[in-house]
C-alpha cells in the first residue's frame, strides 16, 4: 500500500504533464463537441453552405438568382479580385462561389425567346465538392425556371421573376423518423470520439513518466532489494496505472457529461452509459499499454513519442476523427486490430441506436469485450516480462 501511495505522489508531482495532456487536450475535445451540430432531434434542416455570389451583371434576373442562392445559406462577402477568390476557395471559407457574368440576364431572356442555350454561369468550388454539387442543382434549377418562364409566359424581366418565385415557393418537408429511443446528441458522440486521443496519450504519458522515475537505477535497486515479492510489486504498480486510467476517464467523461450531456442524462441514459463504458475500457487499455511500455523499460522520451504516435495512429485508424464510414475497406480490415476501432464502433452504435433493447445493446457489449481483451493481453505480457526482467537483473 505504501508503494502504491508513493506511486500516486510521483504521478501528482508531474503537474505540467497533467495540465497539458489531461486538462487541456480534453477541454479541446469538449470545445469540438460544442461546435458540432446538435440539432438532429425534432425536425431536419437542409445543410447550410457558405456561399458567395459575385454579380457582374447587376440585372434584375441576376439579382433574383442571387437572392435565391443566398436563401437558407450563409452569405460570405468576397471581393471580385483574383486574390480574394483564391483565399476564399483555398481556405474553404466558401464552399460555393457563383459568378454571374456580365450580360447574363439579357442573354437568358434572348436565348429563351429564340429557344437556344442560355449563357453559362461560372462557379468556384472548394474541396467539399459534394456541397458544390448540391448548390449546383439549386442554382441551375432556379435558372432553368427563369428560362422556362421567359420561354413560355414571356413578359418583362419582373414578370418572369415574379412567376418563377411564385412557382418556387415552398420546399419539401423533411421530418425525422420517430424512433423508440431518444437519440444521443451528436455533440457528445463527437466529443467522445475525439476523447480517444487525450485519453490514450495522457494515460500513457503519465504512466510512462511514473515508470521511468521508478525505474531509475538507484530507486530500482532499492525496490528490488526489498523483501516485497515480484507479484506485490507489480500489482502495486498496476494499481497505480489503473488509478491513473480512472482519473483520466473520470475527468474526460465527466467533463463531457457536465457540459454536453445534460439532456442525454435524462433522455437516453443507456446510450450515455455505453459511451461512458467504451471510454472507460479504452482508458484501461491505454493504461495497460503504458504499463507494458514501462515494464519493457522504455525511456521517458521514447514513451512520450510512443504515446503520441500510437495515440494518433489509433485514433485515425479507429475512425475516431473522420468517422468509420469514410475509411476504405482495406484500412478497415487493419483497424480491427486496434482497440480504438471497437470503441468508435460502440460510440457510433450508441449514438444511432433506434431502440434500447437486448438485441441492440448486447452486440455493443461484445465489442467492448473485444477492446478489453487488448488491455488484458498487454497487462499479462507486462507482468510476465516484469517478472523475468527483474530476475535477470537480480541474478
Amino acid at each position: 500500500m505504501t508503494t502504491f501511495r508513493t506511486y500516486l505522489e510521483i504521478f501528482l508531482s508531474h503537474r505540467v504533464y497533467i495540465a497539458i495532456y489531461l486538462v487541456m487536450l480534453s477541454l479541446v475535445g469538449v470545445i469540438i463537441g460544442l461546435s458540432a451540430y446538435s440539432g438532429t432531434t425534432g425536425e431536419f434542416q437542409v445543410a447550410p453552405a457558405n456561399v458567395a455570389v459575385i454579380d457582374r451583371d447587376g440585372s434584375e434576373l441576376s439579382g433574383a438568382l442571387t437572392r435565391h442562392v443566398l436563401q437558407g445559406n450563409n452569405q460570405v462577402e468576397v471581393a471580385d479580385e483574383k486574390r480574394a477568390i483564391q483565399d476564399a476557395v483555398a481556405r474553404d471559407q466558401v464552399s460555393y462561389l457563383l459568378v454571374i457574368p456580365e450580360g447574363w440576364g439579357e442573354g437568358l431572356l434572348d436565348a429563351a425567346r429564340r429557344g437556344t442555350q442560355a449563357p453559362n454561369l461560372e462557379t468556384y468550388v472548394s474541396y467539399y465538392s459534394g456541397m458544390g454539387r448540391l448548390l449546383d442543382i439549386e442554382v441551375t434549377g432556379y435558372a432553368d425556371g427563369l428560362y422556362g418562364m421567359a420561354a413560355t409566359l414571356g413578359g418583362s424581366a419582373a414578370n418572369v421573376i415574379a412567376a418563377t418565385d411564385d412557382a418556387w415557393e415552398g420546399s419539401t418537408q423533411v421530418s425525422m423518423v420517430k424512433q423508440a429511443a431518444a437519440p444521443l446528441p451528436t455533440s457528445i458522440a463527437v466529443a467522445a470520439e475525439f476523447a480517444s486521443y487525450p485519453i490514450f496519450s495522457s494515460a500513457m504519458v503519465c504512466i510512462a513518466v511514473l515508470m521511468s522515475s521508478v525505474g531509475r537505477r538507484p530507486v530500482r535497486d532499492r525496490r528490488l532489494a526489498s523483501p516485497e515479492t515480484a507479484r506485490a510489486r507489480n500489482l502495486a504498480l498496476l494499481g497505480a496505472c489503473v488509478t491513473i486510467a480512472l482519473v483520466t476517464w473520470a475527468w474526460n467523461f465527466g467533463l463531457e457529461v457536465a457540459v454536453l450531456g445534460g439532456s442525454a442524462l435524462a433522455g437516453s441514459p443507456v446510450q450515455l452509459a455505453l459511451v461512458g463504458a467504451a471510454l472507460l475500457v479504452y482508458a484501461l487499455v491505454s493504461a495497460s499499454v503504458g504499463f507494458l511500455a514501462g515494464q519493457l523499460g522504455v525511456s521517458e522520451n521514447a514513451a512520450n513519442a510512443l504515446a503520441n504516435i500510437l495515440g494518433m495512429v489509433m485514433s485515425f485508424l479507429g475512425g475516431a476523427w473522420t468517422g468509420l464510414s469514410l475509411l476504405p475497406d482495406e484500412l478497415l480490415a487493419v483497424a480491427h486490430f486496434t482497440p480504438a476501432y471497437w470503441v468508435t464502433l460502440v460510440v457510433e452504435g450508441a449514438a444511432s441506436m433506434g431502440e434500447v433493447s437486448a438485441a441492440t445493446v448486447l452486440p455493443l457489449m461484445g465489442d467492448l469485450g473485444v477492446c478489453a481483451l487488448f488491455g488484458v493481453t498487454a497487462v499479462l505480457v507486462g507482468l510476465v516480462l516484469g517478472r523475468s526482467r527483474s530476475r535477470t537483473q537480480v541474478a
Partner: protein
Amino acid sequence: MLASLRTSVLSLARDKALLVWALAFPVIMTFIFMGMFSGLQDAYTTVGSTLGVVRDESYTAAVGLDEMIQAISDPMSSDRICDVTYYESAMAAEVAANAGEVDAYLTVDSAGTPQLHATNASVSQNGRLPISFLAEVLDSYQHTRNAVEKVAATRPEILSTGEAIGAFTGDAVKTVRLTATKNPPSADARYYYALLAMATGMGATAAMESVRRLLPTAGPLGARQALAAVPRWRMLVGALLGAWICEFACLLVAVLFMWGVAGVSFGSDTPGVVVALAASSLMACAAGALCGTVTRMETGMVSGITCLLSLFTGLYGTSSQQLADAIEATAPALAHANPLWQTTNCFYALLYYDTPDAFLESVAALLVMALVFLALASFRMRRTSYDHL
C-alpha cells in the same frame, strides 16, 4: 564552434529521438493518411444514400415523380445519388428505416406533395449532406411541377405541344467550374501540411537537448564545457546549427517521401519548399533552445505543447479543422501567433497562390519568431552561466 556543431550532430544522431519525431513520425502518419484519403476524396464527392419509396396510389399518381426517382437511382448515370427500395405501405417503410435498412423514406400525400422521412442514425453517421441532396432533388421536382401547372393555368394552349415542359427541363442554363487557385483545392493537403508542422514542432526537442548539454547544470560534462576557454556564444551557435541541420535534413527527407510516395502536391516552387522547411526548422530550434534554458522543462512538455498547437492547424480530423477555421475567422491574430500555423501557411501559399507575398509574409513571421526565441534564449543562457560560475 565546429567542435560543438559536430558533437551536437553526433549526439542527436545517436539519441534517435529526433529521428523518431522529425522522420519516422511523419513517414508513419503518411502511410496512414495514404490509406485514409484513398477513401476520403471519394467520400466528399459521393453523397449517396439509401432511399425507401412507399409505392401507393398517391405515388403512382404523381406525374413524373417515379421517372425522376429512377433517374437519380440509375446505377449507370452520373446523376445517381441514391439506391431505391420500394415498400407497399408507410408502416413497412418506417419499420425498415428503424431497422437501419434505409437512410430515409419517401411518402406522397393525397395532394401529390412528396414528403421525406429521415432517420437519426443516417444523419448522425453520414452528416446532413446525403439527405439534403434528396430534399433538394425533390424540391426541384416540385418547383418544376408548380411552374408547369402555373403555365397550364394561364396559357393552356402552349402546353399541348410539349415545348413548355421542355423549356423547364431542357437544362438550358449550365454552370462551368473554374479554378481560381494555382492548383485545385485538395482536402488531404491540409492534413499533410499540418502533419509536417507537427513534426517540425516536435523537432524542437532536439535543439532543447543540444542546448541543455551545454548548461553548467547538466552534470560534469556541462560544468567542464562552461569552464572551457571558448566563448559561450560560439558553443551555443554551434550546438544550434547542429540541431538545425539535423532537423532540416530529416524534414527534407520526410517531404521527399510525402511527395514521392504519397504523391502530396507541394506546388511547383521547389526552392520555396526548401526555404519554408529551413525557416520552420530554424524557428523550432530557436524555440527548443529557449525551452532548454528552462530547467524544469521536460521533452514531454514540448511535445504536449506541440500537440496542442497542432489542433489549431487542423490535424485532428474534420471537427478540429472546423474549430481552427472558426478561430481564424473570428480572431486571426490569435491564429497567426501560432508558429505551426505559419508553417502550414507557407506550404498553402506555395500551393495555391501565384503571387509570392503570402509565402514571404509567413516566412518573415517565422524568422521573427526565431529571432525572438533566440534573443530570449541567449539572455537566459548568460544568466544561468554566470549564476553557476
